[in-house]
């Protein structure tokens, strides 16, 4: 059952995907950033992936393009998962928002935005969520030093 869906998705998107492989029980697709919203729409409409579980990114400082934006989808009908990845550059870390498709993308995109500086085109609410207003930098980028402090309230002397 699960294998069938993975194969049908691979048949549908395999030609346009940069990579498509089954790994640890889920299908991992790597696509161009411009295709993310279209693939997500197809996953939801044609293959029944009704839940967007998670959005995050991975920083590869020595690689160009530098970031992987990683999405995980789940089908509550067939109990299968799909991972969708897109590579974006540090100069233009932009992908289209998935908020029109999944409301769960709202918070996830905000977190990914503040942690990695990924811009989600079309999401008008990218306020800080785990961090605070005025925080400088993106802490999960590999070049953000772990020990850097930005106290909002000055320490008592």
């Amino acid at each position: 059952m699960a294998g069938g869906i993975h194969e049908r998705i691979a048949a549908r998107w395999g030609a346009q995907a940069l990579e498509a492989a089954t790994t640890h029980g889920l299908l991992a697709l790597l696509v161009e950033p411009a295709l993310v919203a279209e693939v997500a729409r197809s996953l939801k409409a044609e293959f029944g992936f009704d839940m967007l579980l998670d959005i995050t990114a991975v920083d590869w400082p020595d690689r160009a393009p530098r970031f992987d934006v990683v999405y995980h989808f789940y089908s509550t009908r067939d109990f299968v998962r799909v991972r969708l990845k897109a590579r974006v550059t540090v100069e233009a870390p932009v992908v289209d928002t998935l908020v029109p498709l999944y409301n769960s993308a709202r918070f996830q995109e905000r977190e990914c935005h503040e942690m990695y500086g990924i811009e989600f085109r079309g999401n008008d609410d990218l306020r800080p969520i785990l961090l605070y207003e005025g925080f400088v930098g993106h802490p999960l980028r590999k070049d953000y030093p772990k020990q850097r402090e930005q106290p909002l309230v000055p320490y008592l002397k």
Partner: protein
Amino acid sequence: MSDRPPLPNPIRPAFAPGEHAGTSIVNIGPSHPATHGTVQIVAELSGERILRADVHCGYLHRGFEKECESHTWHNLIPYVDRLNYCSALINDFAYCDAVERLMGIEITPRCRYLRTLLAEYSRIADHLTCNAAMLMELGAMTAFLYLVMLRDYIYEHLAAVTGARVTYSFGRIGGLANDLPEGWLERLEWILGQYDEFVGRVHGLVDRNRIFIDRLRDVGVLRTADAIDWGYTGPVLRSTGVPRDLRKDTPYLAYGELDFEVPVGIKGDNYDRYYVRMREMDESVHMIRQLVELLPAGPISVDDRRCTLPPKHLVYTEIESLINHFKLIIDGPQVPAGEIYSAHEGANGELGFYIVSTGGGVPYKVHCRAPSFVHVGGIHRLLEGYQLADLVPTFGSVNMIGGECDR
């Protein structure tokens, strides 16, 4: 005091006063006695009805994912414990399972059953906490004391096997820290008997009580389609009437061999969330009783030198084990390059770990898909349109855990 400039506001509310005539904006939290967990809600009220709510989390953010990138795979386990600190063992096992799958390790049968048993035991503790807090906030002090007393039995009992009451650091990649002590299973049966007795009393006190029905029924209603759209999983999704449970749908550990039901609600309101949790605890007890019967003898950790520490007497007597111990502690278990997303059914919903390894003893990235974070993203849907006073039980019924929400 007066010459000090005002402190900057850490948040920017989504709406400002004066946008609509006749409404007022109130700020609730982040440190409010009625919201367990530091969460801030900016609400626009018309009279006492909430028109809009803007929920801000993050006050417990401590850089979990950043910190994980500079510790060995094993050293993360205490951090993982502190995600959902009401059911820390489930986090442990979900994380260890992800790393084990990446390493291609199959845990021993005793470990598999024991993890299942302890995970269900933790789930009971988590649901007890959630329902106890929710009922207490509505004034049910007796129900609170009954449930928290049971939880304390469980905490003490888990302390006997793990050495700690709340954050256990008990999982190990490839196994567990210890086996059960002598007499643990006998005590378990006694506690399950107490559970039956006192949860029965809470059912009698609450289920058909007019006050609770009026406060819980038809408040914070969530439809299934909305729940899925907003990413709800776990008891909240099940309360809307769909039996979606990873333990049934994609069985892991020993769940495929157990007989249990997936309780669902009728319409996804606060009462259903309360009742689904109560019923899930009964199912967990049912599973634990089966697991005690099924529990096989044997080792609790795999015999694999890539992850399991050698026995202490060998470390002190032979050089190979000494080096093995040293390498595992200093370099960490060597996890092959790759990436994995592995999910367990946490007490609150899908608890997923997305792990990237570039090979070596330290993870490249550990991301936790925390159910509470996703739930807080849609919680305004449960608040809007209801009374301000309903915020308390609604928030309690979603069981937002700051540790995993803010990471």
